[in-house]
Protein backbone atom coordinates (compact mmCIF):
# COMPACT_ATOMS: atom_id res chain seq x y z
CA UNK A 1 0.00 0.00 0.00
CA UNK A 2 2.71 2.48 0.83
CA UNK A 3 4.31 1.73 -2.51
CA UNK A 4 1.14 2.73 -4.33
CA UNK A 5 0.98 5.82 -2.20
CA UNK A 6 4.57 6.92 -2.58
CA UNK A 7 4.52 6.29 -6.31
CA UNK A 8 2.10 9.16 -6.72
CA UNK A 9 3.63 11.41 -4.10
CA UNK A 10 5.50 13.16 -6.87
CA UNK A 11 2.81 15.77 -7.11
CA UNK A 12 -0.60 17.02 -7.99
CA UNK A 13 0.16 16.91 -11.71
CA UNK A 14 0.69 13.18 -11.55
CA UNK A 15 -2.51 12.74 -9.56
CA UNK A 16 -4.37 14.68 -12.23
CA UNK A 17 -3.21 12.18 -14.82
CA UNK A 18 -4.84 9.29 -12.93
CA UNK A 19 -8.26 7.97 -13.82
CA UNK A 20 -11.08 8.52 -11.32
CA UNK A 21 -11.07 4.82 -10.46
CA UNK A 22 -7.39 4.92 -9.52
CA UNK A 23 -7.87 8.08 -7.49
CA UNK A 24 -10.68 6.42 -5.53
CA UNK A 25 -8.27 3.69 -4.42
CA UNK A 26 -6.06 6.41 -2.96
CA UNK A 27 -9.04 8.16 -1.38
CA UNK A 28 -9.90 4.89 0.37
CA UNK A 29 -6.41 5.19 1.92
CA UNK A 30 -7.21 8.68 3.21
CA UNK A 31 -5.23 10.53 0.54
CA UNK A 32 -6.51 14.11 0.73
CA UNK A 33 -4.70 15.19 -2.46
CA UNK A 34 -6.32 12.43 -4.49
CA UNK A 35 -9.67 13.44 -3.03
CA UNK A 36 -9.08 17.02 -4.07
CA UNK A 37 -8.71 15.93 -7.71
CA UNK A 38 -12.00 13.99 -7.46
CA UNK A 39 -13.61 17.11 -6.01
CA UNK A 40 -12.19 19.30 -8.81
CA UNK A 41 -13.57 16.98 -11.45
CA UNK A 42 -17.07 16.48 -10.07
CA UNK A 43 -17.96 19.41 -7.79
CA UNK A 44 -19.65 21.46 -10.52
CA UNK A 45 -21.83 18.60 -11.77
CA UNK A 46 -22.68 17.67 -8.17
CA UNK A 47 -23.63 21.23 -7.26
CA UNK A 48 -25.61 21.69 -10.49
CA UNK A 49 -27.71 18.61 -9.70
CA UNK A 50 -28.21 19.64 -6.06
CA UNK A 51 -29.17 23.15 -7.16
CA UNK A 52 -31.63 21.85 -9.76
CA UNK A 53 -33.26 19.73 -7.06
CA UNK A 54 -33.16 22.03 -4.04
CA UNK A 55 -33.56 25.34 -5.87
CA UNK A 56 -31.67 27.27 -3.21
CA UNK A 57 -27.96 27.89 -3.18
CA UNK A 58 -27.49 27.39 0.57
CA UNK A 59 -29.30 24.03 0.65
CA UNK A 60 -27.60 22.88 -2.54
CA UNK A 61 -24.19 23.72 -1.04
CA UNK A 62 -25.02 21.81 2.16
CA UNK A 63 -26.10 18.79 0.13
CA UNK A 64 -22.95 18.93 -2.01
CA UNK A 65 -20.73 19.25 1.06
CA UNK A 66 -22.48 16.35 2.85
CA UNK A 67 -22.14 14.16 -0.21
CA UNK A 68 -18.43 14.79 -0.74
CA UNK A 69 -17.59 14.41 2.96
CA UNK A 70 -19.49 11.10 3.00
CA UNK A 71 -17.35 10.03 0.05
CA UNK A 72 -14.16 11.12 1.84
CA UNK A 73 -15.12 9.39 5.07
CA UNK A 74 -15.81 6.17 3.27
CA UNK A 75 -19.43 6.06 4.39
CA UNK A 76 -20.13 5.40 0.72
CA UNK A 77 -18.01 2.75 -0.91
CA UNK A 78 -17.12 2.99 -4.57
CA UNK A 79 -17.52 -0.21 -6.56
CA UNK A 80 -15.90 0.20 -9.97
CA UNK A 81 -17.78 -2.76 -11.41
CA UNK A 82 -21.10 -1.00 -10.98
CA UNK A 83 -20.75 2.53 -12.28
CA UNK A 84 -18.36 5.29 -13.27
CA UNK A 85 -17.18 7.55 -10.46
CA UNK A 86 -19.21 10.41 -11.96
CA UNK A 87 -22.43 8.38 -11.93
CA UNK A 88 -21.71 7.14 -8.42
CA UNK A 89 -20.97 10.64 -7.07
CA UNK A 90 -24.14 12.03 -8.63
CA UNK A 91 -26.12 9.11 -7.21
CA UNK A 92 -24.94 10.05 -3.71
CA UNK A 93 -25.76 13.72 -4.33
CA UNK A 94 -29.22 12.76 -5.59
CA UNK A 95 -29.87 10.60 -2.54
CA UNK A 96 -28.79 13.38 -0.14
CA UNK A 97 -30.82 15.98 -2.04
CA UNK A 98 -33.94 13.81 -1.83
CA UNK A 99 -33.37 13.53 1.94
CA UNK A 100 -33.00 17.31 2.18
CA UNK A 101 -36.13 17.89 0.10
CA UNK A 102 -38.14 15.47 2.21
CA UNK A 103 -37.07 17.41 5.30
CA UNK A 104 -38.34 20.63 3.75
CA UNK A 105 -41.84 21.74 2.92
CA UNK A 106 -43.85 20.39 0.04
CA UNK A 107 -43.98 23.80 -1.56
CA UNK A 108 -40.26 23.89 -2.17
CA UNK A 109 -40.39 20.35 -3.49
CA UNK A 110 -43.17 21.12 -5.92
CA UNK A 111 -41.12 24.01 -7.28
CA UNK A 112 -38.13 21.71 -7.60
CA UNK A 113 -40.17 19.17 -9.49
CA UNK A 114 -41.43 21.73 -11.94
CA UNK A 115 -39.65 22.00 -15.23
CA UNK A 116 -37.86 25.24 -15.90
CA UNK A 117 -36.68 25.88 -12.37
CA UNK A 118 -33.16 26.20 -13.71
CA UNK A 119 -34.22 29.42 -15.39
CA UNK A 120 -34.15 31.05 -11.95
CA UNK A 121 -30.42 30.49 -11.71
CA UNK A 122 -28.53 33.78 -11.83
CA UNK A 123 -26.69 34.23 -15.10
CA UNK A 124 -23.44 34.84 -13.23
CA UNK A 125 -23.65 31.39 -11.68
CA UNK A 126 -23.85 29.66 -15.02
CA UNK A 127 -20.87 28.28 -16.76
CA UNK A 128 -20.37 26.90 -20.23
CA UNK A 129 -17.23 25.11 -19.15
CA UNK A 130 -19.13 22.17 -17.69
CA UNK A 131 -18.23 18.84 -19.22
CA UNK A 132 -21.90 17.95 -19.13
CA UNK A 133 -22.73 20.66 -21.60
CA UNK A 134 -21.95 18.65 -24.68
CA UNK A 135 -23.79 17.25 -27.64
CA UNK A 136 -25.03 14.12 -25.91
CA UNK A 137 -26.33 16.01 -22.88
CA UNK A 138 -28.18 18.39 -25.19
CA UNK A 139 -29.71 15.47 -27.04
CA UNK A 140 -30.91 13.96 -23.77
CA UNK A 141 -32.33 17.31 -22.69
CA UNK A 142 -34.14 17.56 -26.02
CA UNK A 143 -35.50 14.03 -25.64
CA UNK A 144 -36.82 14.94 -22.19
CA UNK A 145 -38.35 18.13 -23.59
CA UNK A 146 -40.04 16.17 -26.35
CA UNK A 147 -41.78 13.76 -24.00
CA UNK A 148 -45.51 14.31 -23.64
CA UNK A 149 -45.86 16.88 -20.86
CA UNK A 150 -47.61 14.52 -18.42
CA UNK A 151 -44.82 11.94 -18.76
CA UNK A 152 -42.07 14.50 -18.32
CA UNK A 153 -43.84 15.96 -15.32
CA UNK A 154 -44.07 12.71 -13.34
CA UNK A 155 -40.40 11.94 -14.09
CA UNK A 156 -39.32 15.40 -12.95
CA UNK A 157 -41.49 15.41 -9.85
CA UNK A 158 -40.09 12.01 -8.89
CA UNK A 159 -36.42 12.39 -9.76
CA UNK A 160 -35.80 16.10 -9.22
CA UNK A 161 -38.59 16.80 -6.71
CA UNK A 162 -38.09 13.76 -4.51
CA UNK A 163 -41.81 12.93 -4.45
CA UNK A 164 -43.04 9.36 -4.16
CA UNK A 165 -45.45 8.02 -6.76
CA UNK A 166 -48.25 8.12 -4.19
CA UNK A 167 -47.59 11.80 -3.46
CA UNK A 168 -47.49 12.57 -7.17
CA UNK A 169 -50.79 10.76 -7.75
CA UNK A 170 -52.49 12.77 -5.03
CA UNK A 171 -50.91 16.03 -6.22
CA UNK A 172 -52.05 15.47 -9.80
CA UNK A 173 -55.33 13.84 -8.75
CA UNK A 174 -54.61 10.84 -10.92
CA UNK A 175 -54.79 7.12 -10.10
CA UNK A 176 -51.52 5.64 -8.84
CA UNK A 177 -51.44 3.18 -11.74
CA UNK A 178 -51.64 6.05 -14.21
CA UNK A 179 -48.70 7.80 -12.60
CA UNK A 180 -46.55 4.66 -12.61
CA UNK A 181 -47.54 3.98 -16.20
CA UNK A 182 -46.46 7.48 -17.27
CA UNK A 183 -43.14 7.06 -15.50
CA UNK A 184 -42.58 3.81 -17.31
CA UNK A 185 -43.63 5.13 -20.74
CA UNK A 186 -41.47 8.22 -20.38
CA UNK A 187 -38.39 6.31 -19.28
CA UNK A 188 -38.83 3.79 -22.07
CA UNK A 189 -38.99 6.59 -24.63
CA UNK A 190 -35.80 8.10 -23.24
CA UNK A 191 -34.25 4.64 -23.29
CA UNK A 192 -35.11 4.38 -26.98
CA UNK A 193 -33.02 7.52 -27.57
CA UNK A 194 -30.14 5.93 -25.72
CA UNK A 195 -28.57 4.23 -28.72
CA UNK A 196 -25.44 6.12 -29.55
CA UNK A 197 -25.28 7.79 -26.14
CA UNK A 198 -23.27 5.08 -24.54
CA UNK A 199 -20.22 7.21 -25.26
CA UNK A 200 -21.54 9.99 -23.02
CA UNK A 201 -18.57 10.99 -20.86
CA UNK A 202 -18.87 9.44 -17.45
Amino acid at each position, binding site marked *: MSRLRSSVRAGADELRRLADEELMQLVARNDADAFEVILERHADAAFALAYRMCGRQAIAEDVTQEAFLAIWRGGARYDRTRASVRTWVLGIVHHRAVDALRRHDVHARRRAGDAGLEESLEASE*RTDLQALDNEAARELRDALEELPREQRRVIELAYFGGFTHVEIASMLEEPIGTVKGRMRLGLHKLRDHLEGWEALPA
Partner: protein
Amino acid sequence: MNDCEHRLDAAAYVLGAIEDPESYREHLATCATCRAEVAELARVVDLLPATVAPAAASRELRGRIMASVHSEAELLRAAGERADQPPARARGSFAGSLWLPAGAAALAAGLAAALVLALSGGPSVPVRVRVASLSPSESGAHVVLVERGGRGELVVRGMRQAPAGDVFEVWIKRGAGAQPRPTDALFGVTNAGDASVSIPSDLRGVTEILVTHEPVGGSRHPTSAPLLHVAA
Protein backbone atom coordinates in the same frame (compact mmCIF):
# COMPACT_ATOMS: atom_id res chain seq x y z
CA MET B 1 -39.41 -11.38 -21.53
CA ASN B 2 -42.07 -12.82 -19.27
CA ASP B 3 -44.44 -10.37 -17.74
CA CYS B 4 -44.76 -9.66 -14.06
CA GLU B 5 -47.46 -7.68 -12.32
CA HIS B 6 -44.78 -5.67 -10.49
CA ARG B 7 -42.93 -4.68 -13.62
CA LEU B 8 -44.76 -1.35 -13.69
CA ASP B 9 -43.07 -0.54 -10.37
CA ALA B 10 -39.59 -0.68 -11.88
CA ALA B 11 -39.79 2.85 -13.29
CA ALA B 12 -40.96 4.32 -9.97
CA TYR B 13 -38.22 2.35 -8.22
CA VAL B 14 -35.33 3.58 -10.38
CA LEU B 15 -36.63 7.16 -10.06
CA GLY B 16 -36.42 6.74 -6.27
CA ALA B 17 -40.17 7.33 -6.06
CA ILE B 18 -41.50 3.98 -4.92
CA GLU B 19 -43.25 4.15 -1.57
CA ASP B 20 -41.74 0.97 -0.16
CA PRO B 21 -38.39 0.36 -1.85
CA GLU B 22 -37.41 -2.33 0.64
CA SER B 23 -40.19 -4.71 -0.33
CA TYR B 24 -39.56 -4.04 -4.01
CA ARG B 25 -35.90 -4.94 -3.47
CA GLU B 26 -37.06 -8.21 -1.92
CA HIS B 27 -39.20 -8.81 -4.97
CA LEU B 28 -36.25 -8.03 -7.26
CA ALA B 29 -34.24 -10.76 -5.60
CA THR B 30 -36.74 -13.29 -6.89
CA CYS B 31 -37.85 -11.81 -10.23
CA ALA B 32 -35.58 -11.77 -13.29
CA THR B 33 -38.14 -9.85 -15.35
CA CYS B 34 -38.15 -6.92 -12.95
CA ARG B 35 -34.38 -7.06 -12.49
CA ALA B 36 -33.88 -6.72 -16.24
CA GLU B 37 -36.35 -3.82 -16.39
CA VAL B 38 -34.62 -2.05 -13.50
CA ALA B 39 -31.18 -2.51 -15.07
CA GLU B 40 -32.38 -1.10 -18.37
CA LEU B 41 -34.19 1.91 -16.92
CA ALA B 42 -31.42 2.67 -14.42
CA ARG B 43 -29.14 3.49 -17.34
CA VAL B 44 -31.59 6.20 -18.36
CA VAL B 45 -32.01 7.58 -14.86
CA ASP B 46 -28.21 7.69 -14.39
CA LEU B 47 -28.12 10.16 -17.29
CA LEU B 48 -30.83 12.49 -15.98
CA PRO B 49 -28.26 14.66 -14.10
CA ALA B 50 -26.78 15.49 -17.51
CA THR B 51 -29.99 17.34 -18.37
CA VAL B 52 -29.67 19.99 -15.66
CA ALA B 53 -28.40 23.48 -16.38
CA PRO B 54 -24.67 23.75 -15.69
CA ALA B 55 -23.72 25.57 -12.50
CA ALA B 56 -20.39 26.07 -10.77
CA ALA B 57 -19.62 25.02 -7.20
CA SER B 58 -18.34 28.15 -5.48
CA ARG B 59 -14.74 28.52 -4.39
CA GLU B 60 -15.98 28.88 -0.80
CA LEU B 61 -17.84 25.57 -0.96
CA ARG B 62 -14.77 23.77 -2.31
CA GLY B 63 -12.67 25.44 0.37
CA ARG B 64 -15.00 24.34 3.17
CA ILE B 65 -14.98 20.76 1.95
CA MET B 66 -11.18 20.63 1.62
CA ALA B 67 -10.68 22.29 5.02
CA SER B 68 -12.59 19.43 6.68
CA VAL B 69 -10.77 16.86 4.58
CA HIS B 70 -7.31 18.24 5.42
CA SER B 71 -8.08 18.42 9.16
CA GLU B 72 -9.32 14.86 9.19
CA ALA B 73 -6.44 13.63 7.06
CA GLU B 74 -4.04 15.18 9.57
CA LEU B 75 -5.73 13.47 12.52
CA LEU B 76 -5.64 10.19 10.62
CA ARG B 77 -1.98 10.60 9.65
CA ALA B 78 -1.03 11.44 13.21
CA ALA B 79 -2.83 8.38 14.53
CA GLY B 80 -1.30 6.30 11.74
CA GLU B 81 2.22 7.43 12.47
CA ARG B 82 1.80 6.57 16.10
CA ALA B 83 0.30 3.22 15.13
CA ASP B 84 3.22 2.54 12.83
CA GLN B 85 5.78 2.93 15.60
CA PRO B 86 4.78 0.40 18.22
CA PRO B 87 6.81 0.35 21.42
CA ALA B 88 8.15 -3.18 20.86
CA ARG B 89 10.08 -4.68 17.94
CA ALA B 90 7.12 -6.19 16.11
CA ARG B 91 5.30 -3.81 13.82
CA GLY B 92 1.56 -3.50 13.52
CA SER B 93 0.04 -5.29 10.59
CA PHE B 94 -1.96 -3.31 8.13
CA ALA B 95 -4.13 -4.64 5.35
CA GLY B 96 -7.06 -3.43 3.35
CA SER B 97 -8.36 0.02 2.72
CA LEU B 98 -9.50 0.64 6.27
CA TRP B 99 -6.09 0.24 7.80
CA LEU B 100 -3.99 3.31 8.02
CA PRO B 101 -0.94 3.84 5.87
CA ALA B 102 2.32 4.76 7.50
CA GLY B 103 1.82 8.37 8.51
CA ALA B 104 4.04 11.22 7.50
CA ALA B 105 2.78 14.18 9.47
CA ALA B 106 4.19 15.40 12.73
CA LEU B 107 2.29 14.03 15.68
CA ALA B 108 0.67 16.59 17.89
CA ALA B 109 1.66 16.05 21.51
CA GLY B 110 -1.91 16.16 22.79
CA LEU B 111 -3.05 13.62 20.28
CA ALA B 112 -0.14 11.35 21.13
CA ALA B 113 -1.24 11.31 24.75
CA ALA B 114 -4.79 10.66 23.68
CA LEU B 115 -3.73 7.69 21.63
CA VAL B 116 -1.55 5.99 24.23
CA LEU B 117 -4.41 4.18 25.84
CA ALA B 118 -5.80 3.00 22.55
CA LEU B 119 -2.40 1.75 21.51
CA SER B 120 -1.51 -0.08 24.69
CA GLY B 121 -2.98 -3.38 23.61
CA GLY B 122 0.33 -4.74 22.35
CA PRO B 123 2.41 -4.09 19.28
CA SER B 124 1.05 -6.85 17.05
CA VAL B 125 -2.61 -5.77 17.26
CA PRO B 126 -3.61 -3.65 14.27
CA VAL B 127 -5.01 -0.23 14.94
CA ARG B 128 -7.94 1.06 12.98
CA VAL B 129 -8.99 4.69 12.87
CA ARG B 130 -12.30 5.97 11.53
CA VAL B 131 -13.50 9.52 11.09
CA ALA B 132 -16.87 10.34 12.64
CA SER B 133 -19.66 12.09 10.74
CA LEU B 134 -20.89 15.13 12.65
CA SER B 135 -24.27 16.84 12.81
CA PRO B 136 -24.37 20.30 11.16
CA SER B 137 -24.29 21.96 14.61
CA GLU B 138 -20.87 20.40 15.23
CA SER B 139 -19.43 21.05 11.81
CA GLY B 140 -16.33 22.71 13.31
CA ALA B 141 -15.34 19.59 15.26
CA HIS B 142 -13.22 16.62 14.28
CA VAL B 143 -13.65 13.25 15.91
CA VAL B 144 -11.99 9.93 15.22
CA LEU B 145 -12.54 6.48 16.64
CA VAL B 146 -9.30 4.64 17.36
CA GLU B 147 -9.91 0.91 17.64
CA ARG B 148 -7.51 -1.78 18.69
CA GLY B 149 -8.28 -5.33 19.63
CA GLY B 150 -11.97 -4.68 20.20
CA ARG B 151 -11.30 -1.67 22.42
CA GLY B 152 -12.08 1.78 21.23
CA GLU B 153 -11.37 5.37 22.08
CA LEU B 154 -12.97 8.51 20.73
CA VAL B 155 -10.54 11.37 20.15
CA VAL B 156 -12.52 14.60 20.10
CA ARG B 157 -11.30 17.98 18.86
CA GLY B 158 -13.21 21.24 18.74
CA MET B 159 -16.63 20.09 19.98
CA ARG B 160 -18.90 22.74 21.44
CA GLN B 161 -19.49 22.53 25.19
CA ALA B 162 -22.60 20.62 26.23
CA PRO B 163 -25.39 22.93 27.52
CA ALA B 164 -25.32 23.60 31.28
CA GLY B 165 -26.60 20.55 33.14
CA ASP B 166 -25.82 18.22 30.23
CA VAL B 167 -23.01 15.80 29.49
CA PHE B 168 -22.04 13.90 26.38
CA GLU B 169 -23.08 10.25 26.39
CA VAL B 170 -21.67 7.50 24.17
CA TRP B 171 -24.07 4.91 22.69
CA ILE B 172 -23.42 1.74 20.76
CA LYS B 173 -25.51 -0.04 18.17
CA ARG B 174 -25.18 -3.71 17.30
CA GLY B 175 -26.77 -4.29 13.89
CA ALA B 176 -28.27 -1.90 11.35
CA GLY B 177 -31.81 -1.76 12.75
CA ALA B 178 -30.81 -2.03 16.42
CA GLN B 179 -31.66 0.56 19.05
CA PRO B 180 -28.72 2.48 20.54
CA ARG B 181 -27.63 0.98 23.88
CA PRO B 182 -26.20 3.22 26.57
CA THR B 183 -22.57 2.86 27.69
CA ASP B 184 -21.00 4.07 30.93
CA ALA B 185 -19.03 6.63 28.95
CA LEU B 186 -20.21 10.10 29.95
CA PHE B 187 -17.88 12.97 29.24
CA GLY B 188 -17.30 16.70 28.95
CA VAL B 189 -14.86 18.60 26.78
CA THR B 190 -12.08 21.07 27.61
CA ASN B 191 -12.41 24.77 26.85
CA ALA B 192 -10.86 23.97 23.48
CA GLY B 193 -13.53 21.34 22.87
CA ASP B 194 -11.17 18.38 23.26
CA ALA B 195 -11.71 15.03 24.96
CA SER B 196 -10.40 11.47 24.90
CA VAL B 197 -13.00 8.92 25.82
CA SER B 198 -12.45 5.19 26.09
CA ILE B 199 -15.47 3.14 25.28
CA PRO B 200 -16.13 0.64 28.05
CA SER B 201 -17.56 -2.06 25.77
CA ASP B 202 -16.03 -4.64 23.50
CA LEU B 203 -16.46 -3.24 20.00
CA ARG B 204 -16.73 -6.63 18.36
CA GLY B 205 -20.21 -6.84 16.83
CA VAL B 206 -20.75 -3.11 17.27
CA THR B 207 -21.84 -1.47 14.02
CA GLU B 208 -22.11 2.15 15.06
CA ILE B 209 -21.13 4.51 17.86
CA LEU B 210 -23.19 7.61 18.61
CA VAL B 211 -22.83 10.58 20.94
CA THR B 212 -25.71 12.70 22.27
CA HIS B 213 -26.27 15.41 24.87
CA GLU B 214 -27.94 13.96 27.97
CA PRO B 215 -28.77 15.28 31.45
CA VAL B 216 -25.97 14.80 34.00
CA GLY B 217 -25.99 11.15 35.06
CA GLY B 218 -26.85 9.95 31.57
CA SER B 219 -29.99 8.43 30.12
CA ARG B 220 -31.21 4.91 29.35
CA HIS B 221 -32.42 6.00 25.91
CA PRO B 222 -31.20 8.93 23.81
CA THR B 223 -33.21 12.08 24.53
CA SER B 224 -31.59 14.24 21.84
CA ALA B 225 -30.47 13.86 18.25
CA PRO B 226 -27.00 12.34 17.74
CA LEU B 227 -24.18 14.90 17.50
CA LEU B 228 -21.97 12.42 15.72
CA HIS B 229 -21.89 8.86 14.56
CA VAL B 230 -19.09 6.63 13.45
CA ALA B 231 -19.26 3.18 11.89
CA ALA B 232 -17.33 0.73 14.07
